[in-house]
């Protein structure tokens, strides 16, 4: 075979089918148009509140967040899902899991939008723009198992496959895939990673190749997989290609992958443009054990966490290789960390990142220590938290430590909350490392949760049996809160100096932390799914760490904020809003006050009613009892006790010897 020959194949079944096409065309009956509900209706809430879904016992419920008030109930269903629930990435659909497959729901009446038949489905993944859905079942698709008569989306080709890709809008199966057979029994999820435009999706066959497919055709880009010897993992850049035809603009989507050392060839991180498959940048690395790729949310930076071993292979060190994608030639900066990193997180849309390192248990594997997904540290591990920012003030732009190892000992934690805000740090111009101090036992945070809008961070101690600390940090704390004077990106000098710990709180038994999509609220939950010692339930905090609402819920399982789609406002419009923030906040405060009054009036009325009902019932019962007692000629109890003012006086003598002296009286 060569390029001039093409082998085309037709199926027998197809030949048969097309033979049987009737000669006369009959138009299919026209279906009446049924208007669909507005799927984004929740965004039109007059107060722009956010929703969440809560799963407790067998009930799945949707609520509006009402800050300090009990959340407003929207919709509930018992046994809505069989395992868990999940929002689509833009919040349009709520996904429920069933034995037979996946169902998505939405709109103001929470009707069924679509269903995807995939028996035994366990994991799903939406494409970033909700156009496609990937489902995985641990059971290979078996046509024989699907009962006759039920419509099945699968054909003979799908037999034995475990992954299916669906069109969310039409509900149709686009293609199914088999699982790449690798030595490990565990599957990595998401198995297929989507490019930010939903146009491409790819998966890696470890050690061999990256297969990039095009949607919705489901064919391989360039008709073949991209062979990379030894490839371990890859990540798409979240940056979409620029539409403008300006110079230096990113024209294609970019993915990054890494390969370990093979023979004499060093380990390497590569940036690859798709669909052209041109290599954009490579970087060789030596003595590499493990790499982890972390893209900043806008694709401006790629941080590669590299665990390296020393030449003797006795000890390991960690450093970060940071690719500055938007700059010419893509410079790579190396930041030495030394201690194993247990958590790393970029500020969303920002130029800062946070790392949690530990000096404890050297040599312990720290792979997969992504927030929320990491293996639990077996015991309380002492940790150091460091924030880095991009210092643009010098001619050589580089990432600098914002602050280093906070001295957060007992003394500090014992201080009352209102004192905590005086805890300031000066910026350290150079990267300094301090040996962990012995008395910092409380320093055990192991998870970083950035606000989706950046600036605020919650450091949490999760999966721990003795500590449940939550630390609320502000990285742009500039004296008293002045909302009009927000972060000025032109003055990076400010970035280093205004880090502030706003509050340290405890949510006893906390297992999960989640920011709302606006970055104003944090929900911490204690779920029955995880081994927790405490009451199941959740707490709502504001970004400053002020507790707003707490509810203990028996058999609480899951609470997920409904994501919001990206804003449609232009940069100018947002700037204008920011300018008028004072005006807005006054209006909002007024609205809040009205809501508060209404709510408390409502509560009071409710209480009043309960009390009235109770006392009127009591009056009736008491009158009836009195009557019956009189008829029987029995003692009237109330009268007896009322008449006797016989408060018993109990006298008690307490003798205490205060002093005893013995004196010899001279005779």
């Amino acid at each position, binding site marked *: 075979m060569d390029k001039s020959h093409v082998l085309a194949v037709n199926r027998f079944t197809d030949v048969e089918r097309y033979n049987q096409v009737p000669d006369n065309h009959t138009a299919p009956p026209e279906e009446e148009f049924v208007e669909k509900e507005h799927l984004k209706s929740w965004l039109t809430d007059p107060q722009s509140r956010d929703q969440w879904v809560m799963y407790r016992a067998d009930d799945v419920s949707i609520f509006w967040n009402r800050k300090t008030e009990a959340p407003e109930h929207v919709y509930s269903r018992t046994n809505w899902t069989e395992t868990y629930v999940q929002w689509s990435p833009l919040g349009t659909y709520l996904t429920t899991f069933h034995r037979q497959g996946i169902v998505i729901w939405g709109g103001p009446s929470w009707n069924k939008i679509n269903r995807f038949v995939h028996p035994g489905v366990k994991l799903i993944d939406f494409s970033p723009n909700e156009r496609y859905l990937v489902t995985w079942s641990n059971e290979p698709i078996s046509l024989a198992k699907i009962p006759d008569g039920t419509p099945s989306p699968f054909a003979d080709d799908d037999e034995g496959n475990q992954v299916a890709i669906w069109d969310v809008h039409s509900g149709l199966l686009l293609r199914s895939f088999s699982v790449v057979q690798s030595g490990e029994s565990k599957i990595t999820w998401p198995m297929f990673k989507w490019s930010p435009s939903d146009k491409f999706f790819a998966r890696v066959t470890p050690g061999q190749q990256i297969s990039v497919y095009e949607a919705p055709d489901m064919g391989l880009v360039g008709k073949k997989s991209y062979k990379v010897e030894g490839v371990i993992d890859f990540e798409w850049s979240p940056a979409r290609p620029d539409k403008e035809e300006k110079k230096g603009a990113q024209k294609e989507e970019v993915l990054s992958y890494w390969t370990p050392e093979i023979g004499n060839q060093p380990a390497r991180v590569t940036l690859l443009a798709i669909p052209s498959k041109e290599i954009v940048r490579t970087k060789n690395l030596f003595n590499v054990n493990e790499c982890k790729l972390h893209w900043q949310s806008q694709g401006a930076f790629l941080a590669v966490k590299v665990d390296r071993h020393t030449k003797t292979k006795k000890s390991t060190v960690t450093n970060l290789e940071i690719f500055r994608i938007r700059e010419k030639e893509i410079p790579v900066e190396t930041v030495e960390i030394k201690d194993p990193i247990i958590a790393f997180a970029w500020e969303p849309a920002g130029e800062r990142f946070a790392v949690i390192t530990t000096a404890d248990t050297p040599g312990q594997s720290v792979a997969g220590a992504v927030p929320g997904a990491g293996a639990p540290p077996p015991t309380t591990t002492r940790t150091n938290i460091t924030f880095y920012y991009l210092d643009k003030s010098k001619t050589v732009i580089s990432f600098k430590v914002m602050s280093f190892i906070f001295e957060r000992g007992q003394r500090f934690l014992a201080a009352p909350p209102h004192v905590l805000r005086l805890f300031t740090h000066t910026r350290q111009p150079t990267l300094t490392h301090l040996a962990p101090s012995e008395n910092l036992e409380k320093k055990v945070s192991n998870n970083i949760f950035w606000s989706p809008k950046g600036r605020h961070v919650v450091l949490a101690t999760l999966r721990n049996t003795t500590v449940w600390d939550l630390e609320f940090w502000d990285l742009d704390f500039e004296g008293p809160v002045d909302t009009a004077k927000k972060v000025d990106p032109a003055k990076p000098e400010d970035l280093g100096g205004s880090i502030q710990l706003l509050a340290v*709180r*405890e949510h*006893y*038994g906390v297992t999960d932390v989640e920011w709302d999509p606006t970055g104003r609220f944090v929900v911490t939950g204690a779920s029955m799914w995880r081994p927790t*010692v*405490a*009451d*199941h*339930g959740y707490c709502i905090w504001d970004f400053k760490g002020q*507790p707003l*609402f*707490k509810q*203990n819920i*028996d058999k609480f399982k899951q609470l997920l904020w409904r994501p919001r789609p990206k804003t449609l406002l232009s940069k100018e419009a947002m700037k204008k809003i920011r300018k008028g923030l004072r005006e807005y906040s006054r209006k909002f405060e007024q609205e809040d006050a009205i809501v508060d009054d209404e709510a*408390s009036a409502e509560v*009071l009325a409710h*209480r*009043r009613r*309960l*009390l009235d009902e*109770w006392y009127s*019932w009591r009056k009736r*019962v*008491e009158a009836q*009892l009195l009557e*019956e*007692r009189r008829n*029987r000629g*029995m003692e009237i*109890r109330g009268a007896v*006790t009322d008449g006797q003012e016989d*408060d*018993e006086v*109990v006298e*008690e003598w307490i003798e205490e010897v205060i002093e005893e002296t013995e004196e010899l009286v001279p005779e």
Partner: protein
Amino acid sequence: MTSPENFLWQPCPAVNCIFETQLHRNNGHTRSLTQIKYNREGDLLFTVSKDKVVNVWFSHNGERLGTYIGHQGSVWTCDVNPTSTLLITGSADNSVKLWEVRTGRCLKTWEFKTAVKRVEFTEEGDMALCVSEQRMGFPGAVTILEINPDIDAEQSDEPFVVIYPEGSKATVAGWSYLNKYIIMGHEDGSISQWDWKSQERLKFHQPHVDVITDIQFSEDRSYFVTASKDKTAQVFEASTLDPLKKFSTDTPLNSASFTPRYQEFVVVGGGQEAMNVTTTGARAGKFECRFWHKILEEELGRVKGHFGPINTIAVHPDGRRTVLTMVIIWGRSFSSGGEDGYVRVHTFDDDYYKFKIDA
């Protein structure tokens, strides 16, 4: 009393613990307590325990007045008659004993086929009901004994009435107002109302999904509260069995009690089973006793400080006496299997009486 954990609750009624150590030091009980009862005036406090001993205490200072010795097994339950002359106790030695309160003399022993888990006098003290276990082929029964209030009189050997409830066995029972009905709580979470004279079941329904552990009546016996292992306590009207209020907690409940006068509260308590306690901290066991507003069904606060599950709660019958108002009894278990008996007596601060919920 407010802790970081319940920072969002209303200001709590102030409750102080007193006497716990005194009762302990006096070595009143060596095993976990099963029930406590105030007499009608509230000056005496009767405690029974698995250590076979029945004690009586001065409620104002926790000094022990005396001990009633004679039971051969764990004592499950006790009650005192309205004139505080007679004490009745039920035990795992398959007997019910009647005692003279003043002297500690055992006046009468009734033999049963199985252990007796609950006894209660009528308002007049002329009868007492005894809930006996279903075990070894014997059906569970509620037996009504006639009691002669004269301490020197001969007590009748024969039970006055015996009721054999069908279905799930009765775990607790009590007299409704004017002794009109007997209300039973059952193992399957159901409650039933009986015309005890005709041994006829009048009303029945199943508001709980797990065993009912306690039933306590309001002062006039027109309504009652049930505590259940299903983590709820519920209030019912005695004459209709209509559900009135429900309090949902996150822990299996062992006891619930009304606070008479001053505040319309319900005090509930429970916690993990004693056998599981050693595996978790005190905070995780949920051993706090919780105050709920009886009418508004809102939780107001918790009292901490227990290292084991709360077995039984009693509230002083007269809220006007500020000295002693509430008793919580709890057992503590160790991995070795030994058990201690503690009585905790709490008193209310001024804040408790001043507390007023906005309405």
